[in-house]
């Protein structure tokens, strides 16, 4: 078990290195940051000097190595645009994104599993069919369109909820939270629905098809033949067996909730890291882009590691390597 974890952590580190390398090689094509940083009145001497100061005159492998060297020390450099340390900017923005992602992830998982089980058990019922049809909208409409539709309905027409921003936030330590104020909570509703809807419908459809598959299995028939209560058969016997594939997909989806918060954050002008990244791209703010990409890949890799460990917790057959069997 421990050997497995160590092996996985080593693999994860390798993945991060490769992600960084690919990202860095791509930064060469997004434009020249010097253009944006110096005003109209620049001279060639200014440009050359700044290039040397930023280390942009060196080959990208050297730039990458320098980035890694300081990154492992927690130093992601200074933003070209804001002139402040990138880690400071990220720390400031991260709570907004993480809170949004947490709420929409929670919505997606809880509603997704509940509706998935419901539509599987009442396979031919009217309500289940209606939910399945509506869920097609969630899968097929693009996120930004859902966001705009929600804004139109609840902010413009009904005027119930704010259309942009985080509302009032409260600082707890270095963490600014929107959970503690009414306007903060209200502001969370539309963005988290927008962000979580696709994941929710995906999880729901996955849970449903896995449940239908599991409900056909012999051990479910045998559980029924032993006179277990329907609730025990559905939730204890069937749902548990659907969890391994569901956790795989859900883990990846949680990663993408954080990563693709970019679109939702743009639509709702949510002051998170996604919006920061979009602005950084426009300005070719390489330190911010690099730090953001590393942050996202750390999350993806971390979530995948957790998912793999969860398999062990759920499925005893995977723990069988020492006891024999398979």
């Amino acid at each position: 078990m421990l050997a497995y974890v160590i092996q996985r952590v080593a693999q994860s580190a390798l993945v991060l290195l490769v992600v960084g390398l690919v990202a860095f090689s791509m930064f060469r094509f997004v434009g020249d940051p010097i253009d944006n940083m110096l005003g109209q009145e620049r001279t060639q001497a200014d440009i050359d000097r700044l290039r040397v100061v930023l280390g942009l005159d060196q080959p990208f492998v050297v730039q990458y190595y320098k980035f890694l060297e300081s990154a492992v020390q927690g130093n992601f450099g200074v933003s070209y645009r804001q002139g402040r340390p990138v880690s400071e900017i990220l720390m400031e923005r991260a709570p907004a994104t993480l809170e949004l992602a947490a709420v929409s992830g929670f919505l997606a998982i809880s509603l997704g599993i509940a509706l998935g089980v419901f539509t599987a058990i009442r396979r031919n019922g009217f309500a289940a069919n209606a939910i399945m049809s509506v869920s097609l909208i969630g899968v097929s409409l693009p996120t930004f369109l859902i966001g705009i539709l929600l804004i139109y309905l609840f902010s413009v027409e009904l005027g119930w909820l704010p259309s942009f921003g985080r509302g009032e936030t409260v600082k707890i330590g270095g963490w600014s939270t929107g959970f503690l104020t009414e306007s903060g909570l209200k502001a969370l509703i539309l963005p988290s629905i927008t962000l979580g809807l696709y994941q929710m419908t995906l999880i729901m459809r996955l849970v449903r098809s896995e449940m239908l598959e599991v409900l056909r299995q012999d051990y479910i028939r045998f559980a029924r033949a032993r006179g277990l209560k329907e609730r025990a058969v559905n939730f204890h016997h069937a749902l548990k067996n659907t969890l391994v594939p569901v956790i795989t997909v859900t883990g990846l989806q949680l990663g993408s909730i954080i990563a693709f918060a970019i679109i939702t954050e743009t639509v709702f002008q949510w002051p998170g890291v996604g919006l920061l990244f979009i602005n950084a791209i426009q300005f070719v703010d390489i330190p911010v882009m690099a730090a953001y990409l590393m942050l996202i890949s750390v999350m993806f890799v971390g979530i995948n590691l957790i998912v793999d460990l969860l398999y062990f917790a759920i499925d005893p057959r995977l723990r069988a390597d020492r006891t024999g069997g398979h």
Partner: protein
Amino acid sequence: MTKPILSIRDLTVEIPTRHGILRPVDGVSYDITAGEILGVVGESGAGKSMAGNAVIGLLSPPAHISKGEIHVNGRRVDQLQGDAMRKLRGKEIGMVFQDPLTSLNPLLRIGDQLTETMLAHLDISRAEADKRAVAALEEVGIPGAAERVGSYPHEFSGGMRQRVVIALALCAEPSLIIADEPTTALDVSVQAQIIALLKRLCRDRGTAVMLITHDMGVIAEAADRVAVMYAGKLAELGPVRDVLTAPLHPYTDGLMGSTPLASRGKARLHQIPGAMPRLDALPPGCAFSPRCPKVQAVCRQDPGPHIEDGAGRAACFFPLSREEVA
């Protein structure tokens, strides 16, 4: 004769399809008394399993009981719905399925599957159920039962798993066991052990057994009486000795002729010409008439009378006489 545990009268199961109504079980009647093992034989699709599923109320829709009655311990059960039927399953009727590899929930410890079944039916404490789980495993011959209650299904061999399945089917002390091909998926050497185990447990407890199989060897080994099914109908029913050595129905005779016996030496096996008709293409009259060596014009119009001969009965106009075969 003592009062039967299971009594089936004129049982008919129908499956409505687009091409008309199929009758996988058609007008079947038999009794099983306490401590008796009734073997139910027939080819695939003859309706043996379907009859078993009808008794325990696990027909998968759209299959349903359209006619006839089922009595268990003197109580009519074919019209029970929902929770009333659930309480009967496991408590009064236990079921053993064909494949022990798929009958057990892979994610739950076998001890938990046992206690869960007992707690669903018996008014006992958790601690008492734990104790009985160990006893149940000991009874079916699992070595080191006290340690093995905490094991998962994949940690057992196929034969051991079938023992666990039998322990599960018997743990709430049902008076009737339906064993649907309990040995088909097992090695020959293990088959004999499982049959011996079933026989011993049922003798000891006075449990009635419906032993569904297509294996004549298993029938000869275990059954007290035999019911031979053909295309949904009961072709012949009688004490195992009579049916095996001096069958009444020409189909049973053909079936016996196609079973390899050491005493018959190297003679070529007899084969019944043709195949069992599909349920949607049954011939009028006796379903066996197209393949019967003794067929007459009347057989093609009328399903044939129920004739009785001693303890046996058959559905045939021209039964073989005991002398003719002997």
